[in-house]
């Protein structure tokens, strides 16, 4: 059963190019890219409990990195994307390392400062980054095949997204996922068990940055254009919305939240001005009333009979 569902899902997703128009293909690609972003952010914030307001910067790094490695360094798409991902991951570690003793609010502020610095850097070097006017990205070739074919690009995005889901799921289940959960719930206990709390922060940031960087690279390929204003605080907050509404610490939640919020602006097409308001209200509403997000609601769904069977009820005599 474990294998069947993902296979069916992947087959379904992969068959989309057969009948969808170019526009819906594009939308699906954006949704998948957002899924990758959400997966990485959820590991950092949902599992690790760290507050990051600079996710947009990591995505930007991946986007610019991929674009520049292909155009300036002449790397093929196949090499540029992983290289950019790795470099972005390094950037994450570089941010996380000096901030390793900070937590909560102060960490959030450092990430905010980092984001602003990156924005300034982007605008300061227009020769490299295209500055505020953005950067045009040529579709790179992968394995000699030019990605001019819509289908090829779509399948690439789908394959990488599938891999990202697979990776995030496995990381969460592994000792690293548990260490992140420990970091969030009780850093004291974590330290007493030999978990290197100070080292986990750069690790978590590097992990998050890798996902965001990969997503950024794909984004550059899909949209063909990098607009630096799309990687600021508001974007970073939107990423956070994916995981808050989807469910912190849940892989399924990341997928749900990202897909939902990619589709949302499309439904609000005619009412463009309202989109920000709706975002804000959904985020606020979720935080106040459904802090565990959609995934949390799902967990509470199983009706009473099932609950009694699975011994999830509190033991009597709870203090």
């Amino acid at each position, binding site marked *: 059963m474990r294998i069947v569902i993902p296979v069916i899902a992947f087959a379904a997703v992969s068959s989309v190019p057969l009948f969808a128009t170019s526009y819906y293909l594009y939308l699906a690609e954006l949704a998948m890219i957002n899924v990758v972003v959400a997966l990485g952010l959820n590991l950092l*914030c949902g599992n690790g*409990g760290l*507050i990051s307001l600079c996710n947009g910067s990591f995505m930007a790094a991946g986007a610019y990195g991929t674009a520049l490695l292909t155009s300036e360094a002449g790397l093929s798409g196949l090499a540029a994307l992983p290289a950019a991902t790795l470099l972005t991951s390094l950037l994450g570690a570089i941010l996380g390392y*000096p*901030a390793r003793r*900070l937590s*909560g*609010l*102060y960490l*959030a*502020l*450092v990430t*905010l*400062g*980092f984001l*602003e*610095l990156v924005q*300034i850097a982007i605008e*300061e070097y227009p020769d490299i980054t295209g500055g505020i006017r953005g950067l045009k990205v040529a579709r790179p070739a992968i394995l000699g095949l030019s990605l001019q074919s819509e289908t090829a690009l779509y399948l690439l995005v789908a394959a990488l997204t599938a891999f990202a889901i697979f990776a995030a799921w496995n990381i969460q289940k592994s000792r690293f996922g548990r260490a992140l959960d420990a970091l*969030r719930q009780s850093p004291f206990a974590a330290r007493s068990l030999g978990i290197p709390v100070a080292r986990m922060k750069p690790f978590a940031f590097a992990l998050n940055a890798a996902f965001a960087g990969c997503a950024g690279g794909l984004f550059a390929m899909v949209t063909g254009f990098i607009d630096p204003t799309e990687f600021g605080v*508001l974007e970073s*907050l939107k990423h*956070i919305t994916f995981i*808050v509404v989807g469910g*912190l610490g849940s892989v399924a939640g990341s997928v749900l939240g990202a897909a939902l919020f990619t589709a949302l602006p499309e439904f609000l097409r005619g009412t463009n*001005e*309202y989109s*920000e*308001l709706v*975002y*804000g*209200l959904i*985020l*606020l509403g979720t*935080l*106040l009333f459904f*802090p565990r997000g959609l995934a949390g609601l799902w967990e509470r769904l199983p009706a009473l009979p099932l609950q009694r069977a699975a011994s999830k009820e509190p033991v009597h005599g709870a203090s």
Partner: protein
Amino acid sequence: MSWQILSQLGISGLSIGSIYALVGLALVLPYKASGAVNFAQGEIVTFGAYMGLVLTGLGLPYLAAVPLVLLIAAAAGALIERFLIRPIMAGPEFTLVITTFAIGIVIKALIRLHWQDNTFTLDAPFIAPPFKLGALRLNPAYLVFVASMTGISAGLSLFLAYTKFGKAMRATALDPIAARLMGIKPARVLSSAWGLAAALGALVGLLLGPVIGVNPEMGHLILKGLVAAVIGGFSSLGGAVAGGILLGLLETYAGAFWGATFKNLVPFAVLILILLARPEGLAGPASARRV
């Protein structure tokens, strides 16, 4: 560099620093009271400016509009605290931080819905041509900024030190349980702290609006306020004021000597430096012994 230019720059720096100081104060107050930073504070500044716009648009003179706006903002701040912040205060810090951001998003979106991205003019009595004082040219708005900052800082210190309610606030910030045992209602203190902070923010909007124009992006100011608060260690009101002034001066001098890019870099460079090197700020106590 002549003394004249240096002093001129100093006045500039001091006055914009006064604004930063006020925003910093507005951030530290609720933090001291409930341990939450209000990331919507920038939008409250914007809100104050637009409220001023509305009231003066209805025919009220600026000086009459000011106290009204402050009252509205204070009420709004208290309501936000009571219904949006207090329910989630016991939860993870992540939720609290993002909630205030979300509130900000909603406020800004509402403003933009009604007024779009246009910049409006807000008339105020201190918008007048600069006058000469000796060799210096003084902008009356600058004087108002500095005067407001000084007056409010002094007023706030006196309030916290000598009035019953002010002492109640300090007690609650230090030890909420003990304060409760003394009969102080923490709920009242919390609402008041947030109300006061909102009023401060709105005041900044009313002061700044006439000078730079009223538009939805005014909220960006919060970043400067955050830096000011961090310089002061985020727990010291006096530190936030000093931090704001320091930031204003640093920015202005950096901009004059090294250009616009450096001017933009200063706040974030300072922020990161302090957070990494001395998170307790320049005013706070030395780090605890934690290993």
